[in-house]
C-alpha cells in the first residue's frame, strides 16, 4: 500500500462493519415435515461456528445465528449434502413488517374482548332491564368500551385525520366519524344526559370487523413484500471486491465506481465496468435475449447482469448499484409504473363512490329529521345510526378476504402474487406474450446434430474440464448416448476460443470454427468444430431446449380463447424455429427492449389487455408496460421485482391456472360487493326512517361481515 489516504486507513470502511454473514436467513423451498425440520436443525447445528438454528415451516425459512466467519455458502453446501435446496435471503426489506401485524392483532384482541363483554351487557338492556340496572349496565359498558375504542380504533382515527388534514376524504373518514360519534352519543346516554339507547356494542363490533379486514389486507401486502424480498435474495447479489491482496465479499449495491472486482466463471457481473484482466465469453441473454455467447477482451466493457462463462475476470467498476445498465430502462419503467399504480382496484373504486355517499346520506337524515321534528337530539341520533349502518364493514372485508384466499391457493400451485391489484388485472387478460430465452426455452443449449460416436466421445473428453454451456451440452449428449469420454492429455482451455489437447500423439482442437480452422470461412457462430490432426473438422450444432410443457401451456391458453404471441431479442432463425415448434403465427425476432415496450403499448392502445411473461433485463420495460406481468423464478432480480406474479414452479402450466383463478376471484369480489350493498339497501331505509335500534345495527353489521367472509372462503371446486 503506497499512496493511501491516512483518513481512509484510520476510519474503517463502512462496508467492513456490515459483515455479509452473522445472522443468516435461508429460504428452504422444499421442507415440509417434522423430519425435514429435524434434519435441517441438526445438520446446521453440527457445523462449526453455528450457535443456533430455528426452522420456520410456515415461511419455509431457517434462521441461523452464527459466528461472523461462517458464511451462507457453507450452510447452503451442508444443506445440499442433506438433500435440501436452500437460498440465502435478504431480510432487510422485511424489517418492521411483523411488528405492524402484531400491533393489529393486539388491537383485534382488545376490540374482540370489549365487544363480547359489552354485547353480554347489552343483551340485558335489550331484554328489558330498567332503571338502576340499566344505568349501571350502561356505565359498565362505557368503562369497558371507551378505553377499548380509543386504543383499538386508533389506526382509523389516525388515517382519517391524515386525510382530512390535507383536505381529502377517504374510506376511514366515515368509519372514524361513525365510531367516534356512536361512542360519544352512547356516553351521553350512559351519563343520563339523554334517554337514548347505548350504541357501544355497535361501535366495538364496527371496530372489530374493520380491524379484521385491515389485518387481512396487511397479510396480503406482507406476503407480497416478503415474496419480493425472497426473490431479490435468490440471486444473492454479492461481489468479490479486491483491495490490496485480499478479496472481500461485499453486497453488490455497496460497490462504488473505481472498485476493482473479481468475477469468477459461472457468476453474474455485479456492476458495469471495464475488463482489467482476463479474456472470456459472456452470456448476454438476460440483457438482449441473444443466446450466442459474446467474446470480450481486456479494455472492453461489461454490463451488470451478464454471465461470465469461461475465465476469471478482473473488472474496474464504472457504474454500480442502482446506476448500472438497468438505468437505461429506468425512465421507461418509472413511466409505466406510474400508469399501473393509477389502476384502481374494485375496492378503491367502490370507496370513491361510497365515502361521499355515506356522508350525504347521514347529512340528509340529520336535516330531514331536524326539519320534520324540530328536535336536534333525535335528528343527530338518526344521522349516527345511518352512519353506523352504512359503514363499510362488509365492503372493507369483501376484497381483502377474497384476495387472501386466492393468493394462498395460487401459492400452493407455485405462483407468488406480488401486487395487490394483480388478481383483478389478471382476470381481464385476453392475450399472453412470451419472451423466448429463459421463458419458453430453458436457456440451456442441447446438441442438435448427431456426430459419429467416435467424434462425440473425443469431443466429450476435451469438453469435460470446461464449464462453458456448449461444453456441458456435448458432455450431456455423450452421456445420453452411453459413451465414455476419451481420456486426453495436456488439455488447455483458451478463453473465448476453445480447448486444445493431445490424444495418441495427435493434436485435437474443439471450439469456435475460426479458431479451430482459421483458413476456412465459418458459416455460423453458434457452431463448434472438432479438428483431429489434419482431418476435416467435425461440426457440432446446438439448439435451445424448449420447456417440456411450453406447447401444452400454449394449447391450453388457446383453448381458453386467449391469443398468444412471441417477442424475442434473439436472431430470426432461432425465433422462427421455436415459433414453428410451438405453432405460433405471431412471432417477432430482434426486438429491442424499447421495441417490446412499444409493441405492448400499441396492443394496449387497441384495447387488448396483455399479460407479459419474461425473464431478462430486456423484458423489464415490457413487464412494466403490460397490463399484468409474470416472471419465472429463474429470471433476473430486476425482472422479478417488476413482475406482478412470479412463477416458482419449473413449469408454465400454472399460468393458465392463475388466469382461471383470478377470474373466479374477480367474480367472487363482485358477489361480495353485491352482498354488502344488499344489506345496505335493506338497512339504510330503516335507519333513515328512524327504526334502526342498536340491536338491528349490531345484527346487520355482524351478519353482513360474516356472510362476506364465508363467501370468500367458499371452495370453488
Amino acid at each position, binding site marked *: 500500500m503506497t499512496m493511501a489516504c491516512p483518513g481512509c486507513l484510520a476510519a474503517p470502511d463502512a462496508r467492513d462493519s456490515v459483515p455479509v454473514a452473522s445472522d443468516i436467513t435461508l429460504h428452504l423451498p422444499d421442507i415440509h*415435515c*417434522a423430519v425435514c*425440520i*429435524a434434519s435441517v436443525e*441438526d445438520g446446521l447445528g453440527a457445523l462449526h461456528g453455528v450457535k443456533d438454528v430455528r*426452522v*420456520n*415451516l*410456515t*415461511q419455509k425459512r431457517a434462521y441461523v445465528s452464527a459466528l461472523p466467519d461462517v458464511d451462507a455458502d457453507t450452510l447452503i453446501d451442508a444443506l445440499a449434502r442433506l438433500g435440501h435446496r436452500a437460498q440465502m435471503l435478504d431480510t432487510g426489506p422485511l424489517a418492521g413488517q*411483523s411488528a405492524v401485524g*402484531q400491533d393489529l*392483532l*393486539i388491537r383485534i*384482541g*382488545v376490540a374482540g*374482548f370489549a365487544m*363480547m*363483554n359489552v354485547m*353480554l*351487557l347489552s343483551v340485558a338492556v335489550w331484554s328489558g332491564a330498567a332503571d338502576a*340496572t340499566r344505568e*349501571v349496565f350502561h356505565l*359498565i359498558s362505557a368503562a*369497558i368500551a371507551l378505553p377499548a375504542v380509543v386504543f383499538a380504533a386508533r389506526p382509523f382515527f389516525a388515517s382519517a385525520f391524515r386525510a382530512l388534514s390535507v383536505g381529502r376524504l377517504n374510506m376511514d373518514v366515515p368509519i372514524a366519524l361513525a365510531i367516534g360519534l356512536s361512542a360519544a352519543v352512547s356516553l351521553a346516554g350512559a351519563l343520563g344526559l339523554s334517554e337514548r339507547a347505548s350504541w357501544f356494542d355497535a361501535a366495538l363490533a364496527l371496530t372489530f370487523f374493520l380491524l379484521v379486514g385491515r389485518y387481512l389486507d396487511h397479510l396480503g401486502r406482507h406476503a407480497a413484500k416478503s415474496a419480493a424480498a425472497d426473490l431479490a435474495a435468490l440471486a444473492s447479489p454479492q461481489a468479490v471486491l479486491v483491495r490490496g491482496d485480499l478479496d472481500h465479499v461485499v453486497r453488490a449495491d455497496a460497490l462504488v465506481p473505481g472498485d476493482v472486482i473479481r468475477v469468477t466463471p459461472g457468476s453474474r457481473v455485479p456492476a458495469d465496468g471495464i475488463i482489467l484482466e482476463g479474456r472470456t465469453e459472456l452470456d448476454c441473454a438476460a440483457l438482449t435475449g441473444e443466446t450466442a455467447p459474446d467474446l470480450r477482451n481486456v479494455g472492453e466493457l461489461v454490463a451488470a447482469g451478464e454471465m461470465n462463462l469461461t475465465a476469471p475476470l478482473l473488472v474496474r467498476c464504472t457504474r454500480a448499484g442502482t446506476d448500472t445498465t438497468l438505468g437505461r430502462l429506468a425512465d421507461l419503467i418509472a413511466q409505466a409504473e406510474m400508469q399501473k399504480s393509477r389502476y384502481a382496484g374494485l375496492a378503491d373504486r367502490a370507496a370513491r363512490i361510497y365515502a361521499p355517499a355515506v356522508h350525504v346520506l347521514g347529512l340528509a337524515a340529520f336535516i330531514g329529521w331536524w326539519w320534520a321534528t324540530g328536535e336536534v337530539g333525535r335528528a343527530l341520533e338518526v344521522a349516527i345510526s345511518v352512519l353506523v349502518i352504512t359503514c363499510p364493514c362488509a365492503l372493507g372485508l369483501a376484497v381483502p378476504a377474497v384476495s387472501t384466499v386466492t393468493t394462498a391457493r395460487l401459492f400452493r400451485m407455485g405462483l407468488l402474487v406480488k401486487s395487490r391489484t394483480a388478481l383483478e388485472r389478471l382476470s381481464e387478460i385476453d392475450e399472453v406474450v412470451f419472451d423466448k430465452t429463459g421463458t419458453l426455452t430453458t436457456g440451456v443449449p442441447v446438441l442438435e446434430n448427431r456426430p459419429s460416436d467416435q467424434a462425440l466421445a473425443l469431443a466429450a473428453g476435451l469438453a469435460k474440464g470446461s464449464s462453458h454451456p456448449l461444453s456441458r451440452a456435448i458432455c450431456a449428449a455423450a452421456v445420453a448416448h452411453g459413451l465414455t469420454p476419451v481420456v486426453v492429455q495436456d488439455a488447455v482451455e483458451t478463453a473465448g476460443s476453445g480447448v486444445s489437447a493431445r490424444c495418441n500423439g495427435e493434436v485435437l482442437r474443439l471450439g469456435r470454427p475460426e479458431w479451430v480452422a482459421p483458413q476456412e470461412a465459418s458459416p455460423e457462430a453458434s457452431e463448434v468444430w472438432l479438428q483431429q490432426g489434419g482431418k476435416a473438422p467435425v461440426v457440432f450444432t446446438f439448439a435451445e431446449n424448449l420447456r417440456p410443457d411450453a406447447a401444452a401451456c400454449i394449447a391450453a391458453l388457446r383453448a381458453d380463447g386467449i391469443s398468444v404471441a412471441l417477442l424475442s431479442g434473439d436472431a430470426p432463425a432461432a425465433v422462427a424455429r421455436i415459433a414453428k415448434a410451438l405453432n405460433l403465427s405471431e412471432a417477432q425476432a430482434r426486438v429491442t427492449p424499447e421495441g417490446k415496450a412499444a409493441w405492448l403499448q400499441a396492443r394496449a392502445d387497441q384495447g387488448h389487455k396483455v399479460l407479459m411473461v419474461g425473464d431478462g433485463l430486456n423484458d423489464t420495460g415490457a413487464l412494466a408496460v403490460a397490463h399484468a406481468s409474470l416472471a419465472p423464478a429463474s429470471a433476473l432480480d430486476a425482472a422479478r421485482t417488476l413482475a406482478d406474479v412470479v412463477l416458482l414452479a419449473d413449469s408454465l402450466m400454472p399460468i393458465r391456472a392463475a388466469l382461471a383463478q383470478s377470474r373466479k376471484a374477480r367474480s367472487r369480489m363482485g358477489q361480495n360487493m353485491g352482498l354488502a350493498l344488499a344489506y345496505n339497501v335493506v338497512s339504510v331505509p330503516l335507519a333513515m326512517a328512524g327504526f334502526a335500534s342498536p340491536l338491528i345495527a349490531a345484527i346487520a353489521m355482524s351478519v353482513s361481515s360474516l356472510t362476506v367472509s364465508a363467501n370468500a372462503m367458499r371452495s370453488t371446486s
Partner: protein
Amino acid sequence: MNVLVFLIPVSVTLGLLGLGCFVWTLRHRQYDDPEGDKARILDDRWDDVPRP
C-alpha cells in the same frame, strides 16, 4: 339482583385474563409458525432432555 355485584366483576376479570393470555402468546411469537409447531409435536429429539 345483588349477585350482579360479584358476577359482573368476575366475568370482566375472566375476559381480561383471556385477553392477557392472548397478548402473552402473541409476545412469545406463538403465531409465527403454526405449520412448524404442528410438525414439531412429532419430533422426538427432545423427549429425554429439554432443548437447551
